[in-house]
């Protein structure tokens, strides 16, 4: 993105697109690959225009097979490329699960550092778009559970722009979750201000009443809840986790030590989840600071439901505020 003329307002989708473009301009070994990402520009248009500008040698419309995409990306990485793979929808990542978990995540360890896997796997995730089955999933816990890969989730357009470039520059494999229902939300991008490190959590709203942690699509929902809570005199502190593996919990610990209360929010089913790990770690590290048990607001421990039910399934402002009230009730 050219521009030194002050902040520009862009959508999250545009942030990703411009971030990809910048990464491809910066390094000729960066190639983009996936289903329908070339001429079509991806089903969400995140790669719009890239094939036109960088050619079919660097923007590969692949055959339809997720394991094939990741498996060949591994081979391309061994050859010195930096592939950025698109998985079309969260629920379609499972055919590639084996290649991600047993191969992509293991090459560096297996080879004791002789082989690097600078591969990014972009995954639109989460619900809220009224989609059919397998288009609204939150599979991040599977990957956060897997040593050898890193997992991040962007929540806004500014982070989208920077984080995708940082992920591509990373010498380790990164699973990059994109909040698909936030693709069209806008933010002001100021290219003159340096971004925070990729693997860092960020305080996005200061408060004193309780700490609320979220990532990806839920950050916006939590911020909305905080705005409403303020009308009731509650000052919620909000942390955007951003990095799901490795976890950067120092800002969370610091916040909980001040507020004494923590509510964790995620769309994924709560049982055996990333959010559960967060609760365990905070209980361990902040035991004497906690005024209430760590509470979780998550999707239910059910398959993702038909779209007409998703309003009830997805955590919303009311469920978050209800959890805040419960935390304050201790």
């Amino acid at each position: 993105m050219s521009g030194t003329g002050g902040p520009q307002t862009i959508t999250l989708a545009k942030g990703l697109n411009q971030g990809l473009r910048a990464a491809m301009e910066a390094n000729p070994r960066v190639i983009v690959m996936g289903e329908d990402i070339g001429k079509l520009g991806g089903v969400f248009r995140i790669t719009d225009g890239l094939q036109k500008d960088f050619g079919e040698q660097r923007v590969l419309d692949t055959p339809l097979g997720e394991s094939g995409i990741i498996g060949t990306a591994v081979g391309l990485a061994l050859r010195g490329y930096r592939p950025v793979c698109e998985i079309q929808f969260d629920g379609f990542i499972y055919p590639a699960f084996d290649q991600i978990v047993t191969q992509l995540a293991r090459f560096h360890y297996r080879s004791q550092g002789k082989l690097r896997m600078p591969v990014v796997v972009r995954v639109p995730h989460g619900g809220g778009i009224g989609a059919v089955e397998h288009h609204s999933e939150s599979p991040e816990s599977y990957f956060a559970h897997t040593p050898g890969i890193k997992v991040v989730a962007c929540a806004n357009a500014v982070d989208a722009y920077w984080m995708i470039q940082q992920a591509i520059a990373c010498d380790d494999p990164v699973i990059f979750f994109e909040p698909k229902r936030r693709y069209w939300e806008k933010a002001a991008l100021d290219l003159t201000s340096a971004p925070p490190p990729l693997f860092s959590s960020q305080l996005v709203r200061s408060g004193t009443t309780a700490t609320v942690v979220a990532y990806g699509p839920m950050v916006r929902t939590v911020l909305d809840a905080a705005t409403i809570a303020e009308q009731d005199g509650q000052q919620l502190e909000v942390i955007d986790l951003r990095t799901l593996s490795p976890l950067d919990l120092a800002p969370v610990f610091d916040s909980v030590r001040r507020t004494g209360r923590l509510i964790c929010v995620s769309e994924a089913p709560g049982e055996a989840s990333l959010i559960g790990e967060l609760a365990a770690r905070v209980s361990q590290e902040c035991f004497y600071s906690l005024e209430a048990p760590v509470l979780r607001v998550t999707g239910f421990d059910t398959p993702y439901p038909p779209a007409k039910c998703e309003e009830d399934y997805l955590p919303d402002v009311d469920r978050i505020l209800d959890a805040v009230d419960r935390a304050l009730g201790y």
Partner: protein
Amino acid sequence: MPPRKRAPSRSSPGAKPVGSPIVGQPTVGPIVEPLAGPIVGTAMEVDGPHNPQQVIAGLRATSEGEDLVQLLTPEGQRVSHPRFDLEISAADIQAFYRDMVLVRRLDREANVLQRQGQLGLWAPLLGQEAAQIGAGRAMAPQDMAFPSYREHGVAWCRGVNPTELFGIFRGIDQGSWDPHSTGFQLYAVVVGTQCLHATGYAMGQRLDGKIGNAETGEATICFFGDGATSQGDVHEAFVWAAVYDAPVVFFCQNNQWAISASLDHQTRVPLYRRARGYGFPGIRVDGNDVLAVFAVTQWALRECRTGNGPVLIEACTYRMDAHTTSDDPTRYRLADELEEWKLKDPVERVRVHLVREGLAQPEFFAGVANEADELARRLRDYCMSMPVPGPERIFSNIYAEASPSIDAARADYLAYHASFVEDERR
């Protein structure tokens, strides 16, 4: 429940065939499958009528059918082939023989070391020496190999020190050689995964502009077995390689058995014929004939370096030992099948050829035998003295970039570990 006398669906005339016989009688066709052949009819038309005799693996795999490339018969007789004839010196045949004897000795020594508790496991290559040496020696230095976990012979050809293979099976490491300098990637344990890696690597060779010359170009060769052909990843690798014209040779060692599953549990058609469906040449070679394997693989690699890839090679061979040292083949296959294959031994046929044609003197054979003894001694000594990694190995090299949380976990555990040492000193 009555005891099962033999493996199901094999050579019992009354049984309903699980798959078609692999080699039919009237299989007439070109050696290399044409890309645009006529539409084939039923399996019966393709493979001929079912004949129980033909489902004995020993017969079907090195059947003298005209689709099998062979240059040296099991009796050690040189035969010519219209397409893949080979001009080769006595010295080169001797070199093949030496390679095969040494890797067989390496393999047998590893098996013994496992039985003695020095290795945790071993995956024997016994019987597959010709397939691996022939293919390995056909590679040029600039080519890249993607092995499964049984390619000890190919590793040998690529200059990987056999002690490094032992490291994996002794539990010291997960592959310690340098894949780039050897042109031999690390062993793949999850069956078939490496075929996609090989394809991606070959796509990179093409993107890098390294093809176009049969001698100086680059190619990739991917090793896998008959069992792997059922994996989705192998299918996807074939699709990707075809779509991107990847310079990759898919080298399938059909050793007839995927642990206990015989070939008819994997396929109805000869494996090499699958290539036709993907739009690239498939060719079947006597995998126990090192000369034929060398000639065919050399041709295939040259095709790929030129830009005419991919190519599928099915090397018909036989796993003469168990799947691994944990396996017990007597539970699923008949002893006479092995006896049948011993007559087609890949090493013995070269020895017979060298002797009969006067291409090597007794001193040569004695020299190779001494070398094999010396190799075995060296491997045994090294195996016993292999350095055992400390607990810090658990935490090392998980990521390329700095990892404070892993570093903290390492420091915690090493401190805990050290506390025991101090207790012992007291």
